[in-house]
C-alpha cells in the first residue's frame, strides 16, 4: 500500500458521509413506525374523569373507569384510617405512610388505581389477610391503605393524579 492510500481520501469521506446520511434517513423512517403504536390523540383525550362522590357512605367504595382502568374510591371510616396509620413502616415491602397516599384534610378518601402492581388484575375488596384488597390472580394481599403486604406484587397500588373540584366531585387525571 502506498502512503497516499492510507491517508483519508475523497472516497473515504464519501463513504462516511453516505453511511451517516443513510443512518439518519433510516432512523427518521423507523421512529414514526415505532411511535405510531404509542397512545394516540383520541386515547390521550380520555385523560380525565370527573366523579360525583356525594352518595358514598363511610366504609363504602365505588369503582370508576379512568383511561380504561378501574379506579377505587373508598370513603374510609375513622377506625380504618387509624388501622392504616398504626402500621409500622418496617412491616411494609414498599414503605409509604398512609398520610402520603391521601390528600391532607381529606383523609377519609382513598383514591387509587384498582390495578394489581404484579400483572394488572383487579383486586377484590374486603378480602385478604390485611382487611384491604386481595388479587385472585397470583395472591397479592393489600392493606386498608392499598399497600402491598404479602404476595408477588412489587409495589403499593398506584395513586393517580386527582383533585377535589368541590366537596362532592373528584377529578381524576
Amino acid at each position, binding site marked *: 500500500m502506498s502512503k497516499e492510500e492510507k491517508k483519508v481520501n475523497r472516497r473515504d469521506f464519501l463513504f462516511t458521509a453516505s453511511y451517516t446520511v443513510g443512518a439518519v434517513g433510516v432512523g427518521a423512517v423507523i421512529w414514526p413506525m415505532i411511535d405510531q403504536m404509542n*397512545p394516540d390523540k383520541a386515547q390521550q383525550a380520555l385523560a380525565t374523569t370527573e366523579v360525583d362522590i356525594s352518595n358514598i357512605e363511610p366504609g363504602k367504595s365505588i369503582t370508576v373507569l379512568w383511561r380504561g382502568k378501574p379506579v377505587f374510591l373508598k370513603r374510609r371510616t375513622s377506625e380504618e384510617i387509624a388501622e392504616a396509620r398504626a402500621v409500622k413502616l418496617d412491616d411494609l415491602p414498599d414503605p409509604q405512610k398512609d398520610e402520603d397516599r391521601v390528600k391532607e384534610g381529606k383523609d377519609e378518601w382513598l383514591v387509587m388505581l384498582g390495578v394489581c402492581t404484579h400483572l394488572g388484575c383487579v383486586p377484590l375488596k374486603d378480602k385478604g389477610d390485611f382487611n384491604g384488597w386481595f388479587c385472585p*390472580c397470583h395472591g397479592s394481599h393489600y392493606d386498608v391503605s392499598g399497600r402491598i403486604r404479602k404476595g408477588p406484587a412489587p409495589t403499593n397500588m398506584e395513586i393517580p393524579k386527582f383533585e377535589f373540584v368541590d366537596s362532592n366531585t373528584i377529578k381524576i387525571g
Partner: protein
Amino acid sequence: MSEHEYVPKSKAAKWFNDRLPLLTLGAHLTDYPTPKNLNYWWTFGGILTFCLITQIVTGIVLAMHYVAHADLAFASVEHIMRDVNYGWLIRYIHSNGASMFFLAVYIHIFRSLFYGSYKSPREVIWIIGLMIYLLMMAAAFMGYVLPWGQMSFWGATVITNLFSAIPLVGDSITTWLWGAYSVDNPTLNRFFSLHYLIPFLILGLVVLHIWALHVPGNNNPVGIDIKKPSKDTVPFHPYITIKDAFALLVFMIIFAGFVFFTPNVLGHSDNYIPANPLVTPAHIVPEWYLLPFYAILRSVPDKLGGVILMFSAIFILFVLPWLDTSKVRSAVFRPIYRQFFWILVIDVLMLGYVGAMPAEGIYLVLARVGTIYYFLHFIVVMPVVGYLEKTDPIPMSISEPVLTGGAEPSLARKVNDKV
C-alpha cells in the same frame, strides 16, 4: 443430497428449467435420500406443515367475517358461530387447530431431544425451529385475544404486564404495546394485524428449516451419520410420503374428534363472557400449551425474577446444542441420559398440571421443585452426563441392526469413535 443431474424430458420443460430450476428442486425433494429406519416420531414434520396450512386457510376465511373492534369483536365471533355458513366448523377447526399444532410441535421437539437431532451438524435447524416455536406462541396468544372475551382481555392484560417488570422502561414499553393506558381497542386492532402477519413469517422460517435440514439430511433413530444415497437410505417419495400420509390421517382423526365432539374442551368457558375491564375472572389460566411456563412464572415470589426465569426456560433451549457434551446422538445408546430424558418429560407434564392449579400449598411446592429440575436438567445433567456416561456400542450402519436383528459386538464401533 442426491448428486445426479436432473434433466427434464420435454423441450419446453428444459427451456423453463434452464431459466428457473423449479423442476430440479422438485426432483431433489422427490429423490431426497432419507434414512430407511425413520420411525413414526419422524412424521410430525409433515403433520406440522399440515397444521400451519390449515391455520392459514381457516384464518384467512375467518378474517372475512371477523371485526377487530372492541365493541364488535365478541359479537362478530358469535356471528361467525351462528350466521356464517359453516362458520362454526371453520372457527372450531381454527381454535382446535392451534391446540393440535402445539401438540404436534411438542412431540416434534421431544423427539429431537431424545434422538439428539439438535446436535452437530444440525444446530441451525434446531435454532430455526425454536424461532418458529416462539412465533407460534406469539401467534396463539394474540389469536386468543381476538374474540375479546374475559379470558382474552385478562390474558392480554397479564401477558403484556410481564413487560412492565423490566426496570426503568417497563411501563413505557407496556403502554407502547397497548397503544392506550390499558388493554383496549388499539391493542385488539394491532393484535389482529400481527396475528395475520406471524403465520407468514412462520412459513418463511419453515422453508429455511427444511432447507437447513436438507444440507446434512435427516437424523435417524440410531443417530449415526450415513452415506447418501446408499443402502441405508430410501427416496423421500414414495417411501416417506406414504408413511407421513398415514400418520397424518391418524392425526386428522384425533383432530376431527376434538372439532366435532368436544370443540370447547381445550378452551375456557369464561371466554364466552364479553370482556369487562372492571372484573377479573377468579382463575386466570393460559391455554394448556403455555401452562408449564406459567407454572415457572408463578413459582418465583418476585415479579422481575419470575419473568426472567420464565423467559430463560425458553431461551436456554437455544444453547442446548452446546450444553450437551455427549458424542453420541441417540438416547437409544445412552442408558443414563435416557432416564433423565423421561424425568424431564414427566417434569414438564407436572409443571403443566400445577400451572392450571391455584398457586398455593402443595401446588406451589411442586411448581418450585419442577422449575428447579427443569433448569438442572439443562445446566447440570446434560453437560455432566455427557462426560461421565458409558454409552452402549453404536452400529456401523443402519442396515446392520435392521438386517441382522441386532448389532454384532465385533461390528460395533468403539464408544469414542467419531460418529
